[in-house]
């Protein structure tokens, strides 16, 4: 526990001069939610990265060549998959969302 926390905790424990003791009975029939008390359950931290290697299979086809899936099923200006074989599959291998084979030899997205 840091010194700041200890200090704050000690301040909380100081007997109050004007503390008011509630006379109401211990009766909590209302709905309970964590937010009411500024309590929060922390989310799980799964720190992730896309597996390029795993998605490399996205590029492989039965003939061992890369294909480059595009909106019309072929790379613009290449007449087929060949144009994407070069480096066109790079973004594709990253996350499988390669709709962006541009007109240069590099994919321009995602």
């Amino acid at each position, binding site marked *: *526990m840091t010194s*700041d*926390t200890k200090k*704050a*905790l000690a301040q*909380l424990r*100081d007997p*109050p001069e004007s*503390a008011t*003791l509630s006379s*109401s*009975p*211990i*009766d*909590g*029939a*209302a*709905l*309970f*939610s*964590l*937010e009411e*008390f*500024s*309590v*929060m*359950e*922390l*989310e*799980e*931290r*799964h*720190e*992730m*990265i*896309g*597996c*390029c*290697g*795993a998605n*490399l*299979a996205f*590029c*492989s086809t*039965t003939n*061992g*060549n890369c294909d480059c899936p*595009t*909106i019309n*099923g072929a790379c613009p200006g290449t007449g087929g*998959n*060949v144009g994407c*074989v*070069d480096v066109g*599959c*790079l973004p594709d291998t990253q*996350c*499988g*969302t390669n709709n962006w084979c541009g007109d240069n030899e590099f994919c321009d997205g*995602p």
Partner: protein
Amino acid sequence: MRPASPFVDLAEEREPADGDVAPVVRAPAARVGVLRPNPAVSAHPFDAQAREPMMICEVPSAGDQVARFAIPLRLFALLERFDGETDTTTVIRRACAELPNIQHDETTLARFVNGFLVHRRLLLPANDPAPLPPPASPDTSPLYFRVPLLSARAVNAIADRLTWLYTPWIGWTLAAGVLIAHAVFYIWILPTHALRFGALSPATLLATFLVAGASTFAHELGHATAAVRGGCRRVTIGAGVYLYMIVGYADLSEVWRLPRRQRVLADVGGVYFQGVFASLLLMLYLGTGWQPALFAVPLADVAIAASINPFLRLDGYWVVSDLTGIANLRARSRSVFSAWWTRLWGRRGGMGDGADVWPMPARATTILVAYTLLSSVFFVWLAIQLSTLVLWNLLYDYPHRLAAVPHELTRQPLSAMHVAAVLLSLAIRTAILVGITRFMLTLGANVLRFARSASDAHRSRNGNVLYTGGAGKA
């Protein structure tokens, strides 16, 4: 399900309604008994944006899981007052009298004790030697499928031997080396080497595949090593599917207890290790000419570039969360969005003023609002892109991929490599399709929920029905 403990019996759970933003428990009408702190609970100061000092309490729960709660220090002080001897009523009454900043009356504190501290087993019945295990926390991981690959013990064994890489002077030196290596690669090597993946032999392609996988492992090890260096001992490494991506992951939930600076170090540790790994690959290629080492470098870099996206829960998301100190960034961003949506229809949401459910300083709230705006735009864009991918690409292509399997299996001579390639290609497309479909269904359900809350608000405004909240979960 109602637990059998006489103490927890009083806490009556109900299913959350549409408008609820957090689990809801109906607190008991009366509490008597003696409670003691759960000895398995550990507490640490919580370094995050808040308007008051916070503690983080780690509570072991079912299935070897740990639930982590951020609790205001003033309420943590109440927890500390339970000694296993004093009656609960007395403890609460004394706390109200002696803790000036506790901010709640006895009635409310009784609800807090029973609805949270007892329910989540931060407090146990003093006379119950074998209390029930705590209720399982909801799975908040965005991974819809995950396979642990390295246990905490194995991670500790490896990471303990690598913590020296985080010695400041070594870290800065290596980071400079990574920059130089990448400058060499992109300025001198890439322009003169056509990286033709399709021209690779199946064996070289497979080797590239494995080396790229090793680079992903190095990335996760970077996260894990930074966390272990900070004192965490429960870090695990695995693989899973997130949205449409096959991913490697490190479970770093334990780093919540670390100061923000160390959390950020753990967040960027993956890029650091993977960058060093890619630089070593480049040196290996320059020394031996081994092609998989060369091809894996840009693959690693593309993955690193994608990982800094702050809107998907990749490294960039956690960097933003820890740099700004906004814990549960996604959930709170959704809360802000929900509140806006509800206000748009003329009503306030179910979260007070609607800005955030957890009070923060104004600057942090401003950052949260900006993040919410940007992430909303991003997810609209992503939904459009994914729709295009599914409709025009994956579904169109899927029957052909499916038909290729029997074709390869019956082809003579049978090629194990080709069969594996076809199966793997089909499996990855299937995983992506399932992931996108799941994402779209969730998105659709949320749109419907928002639409319904807007409709309710509209009718409420016209005096037809009473508005019931309806902030919902995005």
